[in-house]
């Protein structure tokens, strides 16, 4: 049961990412700004910060798997998210050693992680000629709104899950 809880939460987040765009008022979605929900990634960062020890890599394994799911279900270009999610979660893993945890620090780390993710996606999709936009438009119309929207998601997710994650992490240690 314990083993299933993370995949289940991640799966629900994955599914609701697709439904979420419908929920937003169309005035927001029809304008130039592109808001991309990276809820799966946010939760992976939380798992990494509060559940994973320095020698366990649950979040990265989940990152590979759910990145692949995002690719299959939402983009059809296999490999992009599958590479980018675990990569940026691994960077969080490296950063974790030097920083202490707290809401503010989590927001900073997650923002950094989102920036890395968006850059890599922009880079990969540009290389395969899937998109043709300038770097500036990417920054203004995609990076900024996406960053803000995902931080908005991060704060309630942090408050709801941080206690549970810490408790499960201790149980993992006790085993």
């Amino acid at each position, binding site marked *: 049961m314990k083993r299933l809880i993370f995949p289940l939460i991640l*799966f*629900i987040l*994955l*599914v*609701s*990412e*697709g*439904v*979420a*765009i*419908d*929920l937003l008022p*169309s005035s927001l*979605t*029809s304008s*130039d700004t*592109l*808001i*991309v*929900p*990276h809820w799966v990634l946010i939760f992976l960062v939380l798992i990494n910060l509060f559940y994973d020890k320095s020698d366990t890599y649950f979040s990265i394994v989940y990152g590979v798997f759910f990145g692949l*799911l*995002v*690719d*299959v*279900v*939402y*983009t*059809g*270009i*296999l*490999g*992009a998210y*599958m*590479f980018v999610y*675990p*990569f940026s979660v*691994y960077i969080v893993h490296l950063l974790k050693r030097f920083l202490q945890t707290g809401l503010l620090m989590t927001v900073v780390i997650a923002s950094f992680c989102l920036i890395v993710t968006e850059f890599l*996606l922009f880079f*990969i*999709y540009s290389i*395969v000629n*899937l*998109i043709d*936009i300038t770097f500036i438009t990417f920054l203004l119309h*995609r990076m900024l709104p996406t960053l803000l929207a995902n931080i908005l998601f991060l704060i309630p997710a942090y408050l709801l899950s941080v206690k549970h994650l810490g408790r499960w992490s201790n149980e993992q240690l006790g085993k």
Partner: protein
Amino acid sequence: MSFFRRKSLFVLLIGIICLVVLVGYSLSNRDQLSMPEKFIMDTVGLAQNIIHQPVTIVVNSFSNLKEIKNTYNENRILREKLAEYKTLVYEVQEIEKENEELRQALEIKESPRDFEPIIANVISRSPERWLDQLTINRGSNDGIKKNMAVMTVDGMIGKVTSISTSTAVVQLITGFDQLNRISAAVSRENSDNIFGLIEGYDKEKEALIFRIIEDSDGNLKEGELVVSSNMGGLFPSGLPIGTIKEVIPDQYGLTKTAYVTPTANMYDINHVIVVDRTLTVDDESEKEEVQ
């Protein structure tokens, strides 16, 4: 430490190789999705169906409350229109009957205009907004095939790009690139129709790029309706695509390009109609069109 460094570098390299191989594989012109992909799409589609329904009910009830305010005015306008339609319906019936008789006289059975509609619901929209894809809750079990046109009541919105047994992915026309062209036409009463290709979407102008291939008089006016044509061999003719916003000559002055505003709202799509062409096309010509 050095061993650890080397190990992580090794994993990174393997990751990059996987990335390149998988991206290359998925960008290659493949006809069908692989089995695991279909399975995943069906499973996620099922979950999306379950989540989507209560969400739409809540969202709809909110927007319904807003609409109640306008009901009185709308009702009045609609009544006036209804009166006009009554005479129109009679005329259309007469014309249809005449058309059928003439067809029988000429022994034409199928027309490129005919299609079987398959009604579907949108269950999710790709969060990767660069790609402009939708997932609908009908798949190969319901008779959906690749490259079928998809429209809302207002007009054409895109085409089916990949299918699993119970879901299908629709590429919106706003996300089309040069490889995915639609043949389109502007109908003219007295002279030949003006033909052209929808070649892509201009994000800055928020309009489709319609390149006119024929140098027919080309006196397009703003507001004229662009419809799909059956010349491409994929879509039935006569599906509305958009209205002309602006016409400009291309850089050499030989052809003209028009910007077309789509008639359908690309951001508020709930129910779609998948267009199953009744006119049978042999597979070979279809394949040529895709390439």
